[in-house]
């Protein structure tokens, strides 16, 4: 990796951040699907 951000973050912290992001992305996709599909 050319540009590294300082890795003061623990691996557990990074995994937690990724989990948070995945859950939020799933929520966003679910709301999109609801807005779209509920009209069909």
């Amino acid at each position, binding site marked *: 990796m*050319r*540009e*590294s*951000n*300082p*890795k*003061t*973050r623990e691996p557990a*912290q*990074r995994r*937690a*951040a*990724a989990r*948070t*992001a995945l859950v*939020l*992305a799933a*929520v*966003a*996709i679910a*709301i*999109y*699907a*609801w*807005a*779209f599909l509920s*009209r069909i």
Partner: protein
Amino acid sequence: MSEAAIHHDEHHGHHPSGMMRWLTTTNHKDIGTLYLLFSLVMFFIGGAMAMIIRLELFQPGLQFVDPQFFNSMTTMHALVMIFGAVMPAWTGFANWMIPMMIGAPDMALPRLNNWSFWILPFAFTLLLSTVFMPGGAPAGGWTMYPPLVLQTGMAFPFLIFAVHFMGASSIAGAINIIATVFNMRAPGMTLMKLPLFVWTWIITAFLLIASIPVLAGAVTMLLTDKFFGTAFFSAAGGGDPVMFQHIFWFFGHPEVYILILPAFGIVSAIVPTFARKPLFGYSSMVYASAAIAFLSFIVWAHHMFTVGMPLAGELFFMYTTVLIAVPTGVKVFNWVATMWQSSMTFETPMLFAIAFIVLFTIGGFSGLMLGVTPVDFQYHDTYFVVAHFHYVLVTGAIFALMAGAYFWLPKWTGHMYDEKLGQLHFWLSTISVNVLFFPQHFLGLAGMPRRIPDYAVQFTDFNMVSSLGGFVFGLSQILFVVVVVKCIKGGAKATDQVWEGAHGLEWTLPSPPPYHSFNTPPDPATIEGGMR
């Protein structure tokens, strides 16, 4: 990474230089700068469109542009200012400040951060290219109501995909901010010690994640109605055009708070700094922001009182709308109480913050008037509405952005800005913005409709006054660019704390801060809570 490796990174830099630095950067400060520059460019493009609108409306009759182009200008001005200027500016501030405020080295998801930003230039290239297409840019209003919007020519798919891209960028940015604040806070930085700018941004991020997908769903349905033979919004095919308005405003009203909540956070940082007092009612500010966010989802049909709905619906949406005045009032009273018997000084950020409190409150009051169903039947679709939302978004959101820019410029650049020029920018802006928008209340009450290139002659005087105010306001924003460029190039050296009354982790870092903010977490003893 060891301390030694970090220092190696700081001094020798593995990051590329020139264009590649900006294209490939994953650094929160670089990305914050990109967002802010992008939003400044969009502010001037949207502003140029506003100048065309005010030029045409200077006199009755058609002088400069044809009605189709005028309608394109009102539509594009709104889209550019909302999605291109104000929203990216808040994300730029968030990128720059949130990691420093919570004691984190960077955002939690740096590559996603790069992607969030670089989607935007593509989105706006799609949108702005429509101005040069046969049939012109979208002209059906930023609200994109069918069936009118379905008459858009070649520009239509460009509009839909641009909105999708803007939405994807916003959602990715929002996810990053929540992931950062929830996972990257320094030890000792509990939720109720977070600066209010961080709090208001978390709440904004949740609003984005909940509302932008609804807009995306609505515009996808427009796309399929136009090109794939569906009839979601066509009565002839069993659909319902009014349904689009409900879905759009279910996004649209939270969007208003997406634009203004971070402004509340910035004002809550600036007022205590220049009043040299802790913020009055920190926890009530947090709860008021959350209450505003909740209420924003149950008021949407106040945009549609005249469309028609059952009496119970009209009453429900009127009461919930008026209820928003309570948490908003809590905030205004808390800012005033913070200033009460304080040792205030009036540097440019404080001037913009005080102007925000007074002028945003005017916009809030006219919003209350519009929220009352029976009187909305008179005001709906008139210039009164235009005056209302410009008080909220220009003297609200834009003034808070200006306040924040002056507040943090010394921290970002390491130089103090030119205070005299800053004050000149403030006074010119504040006087001219009122000359621009206040007469529009009278025009609306007298019955002048919005989104028209021509008007009856009795509206001439107030339109002339409004246009003159608009030209001065537009020109005075060039002063802001002068101040920013001067500040980047040089000026008096800024101290770490910059402002005498400033509190918080970001002010413990040097000015300008190092490329990576907190390589080691800050000492928990330095974390103060409830100050701002």
